[in-house]
């Protein structure tokens, strides 16, 4: 499987390492070269400087051959825009995007973008840990 990840923060880097370790072809994009330091020393995929909301950068990352695209930068709107480019311009079969704002996440789920809100997921996780279930 070929995966293109946008954003090499803690989540992006960890996911890139995990997919790479499983033998997948991984390309990770970030606008900051320093962010690639987060990748493990054994990472065998490609790290590319570029902005995922730029179609040229996505092409360089091989998005046209990608099976999955994941947008995990710090900016909700950047993730949303990149996910829509991947889905509607490059027809990537599976597109997942992180949206911190739960309201925006709901709207884009409705528009057919597979979106995860860490805010909602983590709040639920904490609540379950505390054990507030009736």
């Amino acid at each position, binding site marked *: 499987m070929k995966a293109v990840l946008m954003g090499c923060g803690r989540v992006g880097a960890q996911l890139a390492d995990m997919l790479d370790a499983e033998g997948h072809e991984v390309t990770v994009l970030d606008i900051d070269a320093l962010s690639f330091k987060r990748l493990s020393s054994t990472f065998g995929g490609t790290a590319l400087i570029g902005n995922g909301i730029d179609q040229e950068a996505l092409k360089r990352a091989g998005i046209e051959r990608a099976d999955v695209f994941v947008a995990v930068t710090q900016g909700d*709107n950047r993730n949303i825009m990149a996910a829509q480019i991947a889905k509607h311009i490059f027809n990537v079969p599976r597109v997942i995007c992180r949206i911190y704002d739960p309201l925006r996440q709901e709207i884009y789920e409705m528009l057919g973008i597979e979106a995860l809100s860490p805010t909602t997921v983590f709040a639920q996780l904490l609540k379950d840990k505390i054990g507030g279930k009736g």
Partner: protein
Amino acid sequence: MYIIIIGGGRVGYYLAKALLGEGHEVLIVEKNARFCELITEEMGSVCYNGDGCEAAVLADIGTNRADMFVAVTGEDEDNLVACQVAKFKFKVPCTVARVRNPQNEALFRKLGIDVPVSATTIILEAIAKEVPTHPLTHLMTVTDRGLEVVDVKIPPAAPTIGKEIRSLYLPHETKLVLIIPKEDKPVLPTGDTILHAGDQIIALIPREQEDELRATLTGV
């Protein structure tokens, strides 16, 4: 009309001023509290301090009754998302987004934005009109039909010079509307019309056939 403007930078500021002058109800949404104060000092309470991409903010300012929603922040992704939220959640009938990267004009249209506006594209077109040798310029867009009205000039060395229109392999859906010869009177083109150097051709074509039409007529 009730018009919401996202982004109180220079574009938003002058836009609001002009629209207020025309008697519209205008509200600017601006993240930066200081910008908001400056606008309020000058224009009265027409500025809301908040993030125009947040659904809660848009609910608060009555976006569901807005006639038009204009996003003119400096970031393409913010303008896209603000307009999409306005359009798909609050059903605003007309959304306008500023785009910085001209490539995003087509993308935004595809993603549901009614009117994407690229300053770069507008300037390029103005330049093209001023440069007499430029073979194709846009005159008008029929947005909902995906059609363009264009003006093609036949350059001196074009392979079509001296040929009848019926002998040309024009793109399938091209309609040649008018030919304005350099010196003679304008004519409505027929199959027998012969092209001359310097002819100006007004044509109606689907957007994606533009390059093909230009290549066929001018050889460039």
